[in-house]
């Protein structure tokens, strides 16, 4: 064989393998929507998305995904409120404050946390956090605390606030969206931290030098120079972190409680979308409406994460020459 032919053959082979990821993505989209089409076609898109009742196994079945979507929203908001500050603070600490010896020790730990099996986190939430909440925290918050408040005899505090604690801080089951959010926070911290840290270290050192030479302190420099300069990378970190939270399956499956109702309070149980897929796929007959409905949930998740990665790609392309979300 002539060497030119061989070179050409290799180039063609390598290039076609290079397209595998594109083909795989197209296949994923195609099959999700193919299997999901039935449910949206037969029941109607709006009725599926805004329907308030998810009773897939009843007769007649009802496939309203609104409770599942709200379950995901509730868990995501609660988690984001904890994970974003913690993740960003971890990144700032590693990139800006930590001594390099501490850094050498902390960075691998965060990386290990990123690949920590989520099923073990769910298991930990089930056997540790849930009993702590329902057996220990609940009596303190809903019994002792109101008693204490009533005893103070201060208007408002002894009446309204005490009643509020009595009503709202009672935790009937430890498996609720707060427990799920706590465990999801552990899952999301390393994702946010590692991307945000890349963004922070990409800020040129001259920026910091300029700030210090003007007499700014360390915190002033971080807050007014480094963070504004890397805000696009930090927002990519937050977006990808939210994507992780929304898509995380095992934790919400094991500790979110599993009730397919719209959660109204932070100690209510919920069934977020990934949990519904994972819990019900085994019991839904092949090609039944329920099966298609679960693929419908998958399609919604796919569209959502696709939009998130489009947005983060747009942000990192627009504001930076260096791609920040590259290390995932």
């Amino acid at each position, binding site marked *: 064989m002539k060497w030119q032919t061989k070179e050409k053959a290799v180039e063609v082979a390598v290039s076609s393998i290079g397209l595998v990821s594109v083909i795989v993505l197209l296949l994923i989209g195609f*099959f999700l929507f193919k299997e999901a089409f039935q449910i949206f076609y037969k029941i109607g898109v709006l009725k599926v998305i805004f329907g308030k009742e998810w009773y897939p196994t009843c007769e007649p079945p009802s496939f309203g995904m609104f409770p599942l979507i709200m379950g995901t929203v509730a868990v995501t908001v609660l988690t984001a409120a904890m994970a974003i500050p913690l993740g960003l603070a971890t990144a700032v600490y590693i990139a800006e*404050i930590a001594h390099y010896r501490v850094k050498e020790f902390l960075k691998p730990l965060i990386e290990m946390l990123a690949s920590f099996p989520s099923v073990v986190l769910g298991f930990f939430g089930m056997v540790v956090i849930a009993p702590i909440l329902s057996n220990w925290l609940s009596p303190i918050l809903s019994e002792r605390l109101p008693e204490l408040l009533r005893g103070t005899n201060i208007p408002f505090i002894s009446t309204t606030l005490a009643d509020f604690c009595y009503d709202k801080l009672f935790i009937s089951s430890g498996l609720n969206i707060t427990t799920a959010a706590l465990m999801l926070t552990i899952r999301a911290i390393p994702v946010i931290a590692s991307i945000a840290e890349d963004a922070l270290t990409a800020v040129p050192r001259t920026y910091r030098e300029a700030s210090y030479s003007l007499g700014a302190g360390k915190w002033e420099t971080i807050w007014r120079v480094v963070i504004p300069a890397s805000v696009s990378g930090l927002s990519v970190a937050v977006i990808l972190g939210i994507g992780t939270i929304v898509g995380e399956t095992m934790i919400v499956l094991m500790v979110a409680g599993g009730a397919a109702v719209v959660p109204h309070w932070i100690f209510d149980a919920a069934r977020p979308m990934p949990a519904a897929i994972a819990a019900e796929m085994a019991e839904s007959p092949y090609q039944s409406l329920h099966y298609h409905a679960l693929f419908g949930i998958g399609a919604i998740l796919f569209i959502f994460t696709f939009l998130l990665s489009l947005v983060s790609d747009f942000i990192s392309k627009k504001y930076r020459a260096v791609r920040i979300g590259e290390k995932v």
Partner: protein
Amino acid sequence: MIQGTEGIQKPFGLVRKKRFNLKESFFLSLIRMLGFTGAILLIIILFFVAYNGIHVLSWKFITQPPVEAMTEGGIFPVIVGTILLTIICMMVVIPIGVATAIFLTEYSKPGFILNMVMMSMYTLAGIPSVVFGLFGLAVFVVIFNFGMSLLAGALTLAVMILPYIISTSEEAIKAVPYSFKEASLACGATKWQTIRKVILPAATPGILTGSILGTAKVSGETAPIMFTAAAFFTPGIPRSLFEPVMALPYHIYVLATAGTFIEETRPIQYGTALTLIILVLGMNLLGILLRARQRGKKAW
């Protein structure tokens, strides 16, 4: 950070204000505390699982199959299942990932196709693992007719980890100095000879490290194998690619949530969780140490 630049930053660490600044020290210590939270939580969970699981772990536990409806005995087929899934997955994904990385770094020209590949890589990296499970169910289990099997599960995992393998391999190849390539081409080697004889050998340690870290990620995943490979119980280790397998993460999930003996099997659950953690974090640590060593050893 580039080696040797740590010292340069030092003077700024020594910058001290004469006056005690409340705002400065408040926020700095707040960040310090928050920054350690993740690591502390990891250590707490590790210690908890290790404390409860260590007395279950024994030679018998990891070499015997489960008996008495999984309330007793060991987890041998479960460990074997996870290892087989991971190995087959890696055998499929590493060639594809490395070839894609070669395509991206050496053959691709800027333009539509490159953008498409990059875009699909980023999107694949963001897709939830349970959606990969659905994809594996629809394609590998049903259309390719593999059934719930080792092969279907391994392929699903391979699809999931592909973007990670591509990006780590790409980084490893990009880290090979351009002068290596120039020297090889100047000697009259063709492009493919250069890639095969010069660039790939130089990039192999980096690719290997990325693959080991990828292996750690894959072996802890549950959602993708739930509908494609994992079985509640199989009597022994799988004899062919088309048999369902038991896997460590799924075993923990099943024992902890389903069945009638949830409380009785707690020790086995802790033992399985500890085995999985040792496997995953061990691989992870190996990857991290290898990477640190390479960074120290690099001659160029």
